[in-house]
Every structure is written in C-alpha cells, then in structure tokens.
C-alpha cells in the first residue's frame, strides 16, 4: 500500500468523523486540531483508520505526533511490519 493510499484512508475518516473538516483542505501538514477535533474524535479517526488498514499500533507510538504526515509515517511502518 502506497503512502498516498494510507493518507487517503486517514483523510476520508477525518471528513466522516470531524464535522468541522467539511469543505476544508486536509494535507499531511494539517493537524486534526486545525479542524477543531476534540480528543475523542482524534481517537476515532486513528482507531478506524487502523482497522481499515489492518494494523495495530501501540498507543505509546502515537503520543506527540504533530501532524497527519507523522501519523502516516507511523502507519507506513506498521504496514511494512505486517507485510
């Protein structure tokens, strides 16, 4: 799975879960906080993306991520591990 495909999964979930993201551009430099996401919405986006990508990432690896690009980095590594 390419990086673009991983990002597409995350982006789709952002549009589905975070109401304020509607109509706004979501890039790898964006943070979910930019769209007014609360902590639970962030967990929902990450959790649903993990399920769709069929990966498991320990919570400790998700702490301190600054933007969506860094989240995609973590997912990319997790996918490489299971392949």
């Amino acid at each position, binding site marked *: 799975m390419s990086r673009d495909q991983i990002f597409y999964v995350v982006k789709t979930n952002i549009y589905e879960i975070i*109401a304020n993201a509607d109509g706004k551009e979501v890039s790898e430099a964006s943070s979910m906080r930019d769209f007014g996401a609360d902590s639970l919405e962030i*967990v929902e986006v990450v*959790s649903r993306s993990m399920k769709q990508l069929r990966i498991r990432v320990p919570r400790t690896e998700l702490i301190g991520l600054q933007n969506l690009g860094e989240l995609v980095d973590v997912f990319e590594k997790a996918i490489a591990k299971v392949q």
Partner: protein
Amino acid sequence: LNWTVPEEIAKLLNQAVQAPLVPRAERERLPVLDREGVQGIVPYRDPFLLVDCVTWLDLERGMAATRYDLSRSAALFAGHFPRYPVWPGVLQTEGIGQTGGIVYVMQTGSFDRPSYALTHILAARFLRPVTPPGNVEYIAQVLDEGLLVHVVGQCLQNDSICSVAAVTFL
C-alpha cells in the same frame, strides 16, 4: 457530529433484539470463571462489579456470557424504586460493557489495566423491566477497532431479552 452506528454493529444489534446470542443450554453449564477469577481479570470491585461468573466463553468469536445475582444490589433497589424495584437500564448497559471487558482482557492479555474509559453508548434499547429477585445474564460480543473496542450485548432475565446495547470503550 456524526452519530451513525457502524453497519457491522447495527447488524449485530438487530440480531440481539431477536434472540439470545447464545442458546440457554450452552449458558447453563458450570461457570468457566467464578467471581474471584473475574476480579483477577478486570479492575471492577464491589459495589460496582456487576458480574458474578462467566458461564460461557468463546474467545475466537470474541463472545462471553455472564451472570449476576441481583440480591447483591439490594441497597440500590431500596431507592430504584421503593414500591417497584427495577434493575436500572444504565446498570444493564454497564453489565454488558463489563462482560465485553472480560472478553477483551482475555483476548489481549492486558490483565494489569487499572481502569477503562467508556467513550460511547452507541445504541441502547430497553425492552422489558428487570426485577428482583433472581439473576440477570449478560451476553456480549467484542469488536476490536484498533484503539477503540466496541461491545454489542444483551441483558436477559429468565431467558427473555430485557435490553440490548452497543457501547465503546478505550
């Protein structure tokens, strides 16, 4: 806000409304785990441990059935309600959640967690009142979604479905 219930969970809820998710004959075997065993798995304690024993367990399907003796909550029935004791719907939902928690811990081996956070009650329907004396039974199925864990379950009394609920915890 997006308040829709995921399709997989809606499908399970529809099944749960119609019939016990595990037949009575299977649930009435000897307990696979007693109260002490349950306390070794989940962090709930009296007066909020709402499961006395696990009567049936299938970790591959992510399912369990549990039982609780309502007489343990006699003090609560004094107030809910004095002239018509009813097991509260919120506690039925909690019992379903605790049953799912037992499955989750046994599946993942995460025995040392000090607590769980309820994040959603996705749906709940209360079909008939649960009244003392006697037991209630909970049947729950766990759907693991990465960080979040969904639980779909039933509360039964005398093999009648009294409520169904879907909850999510973290």
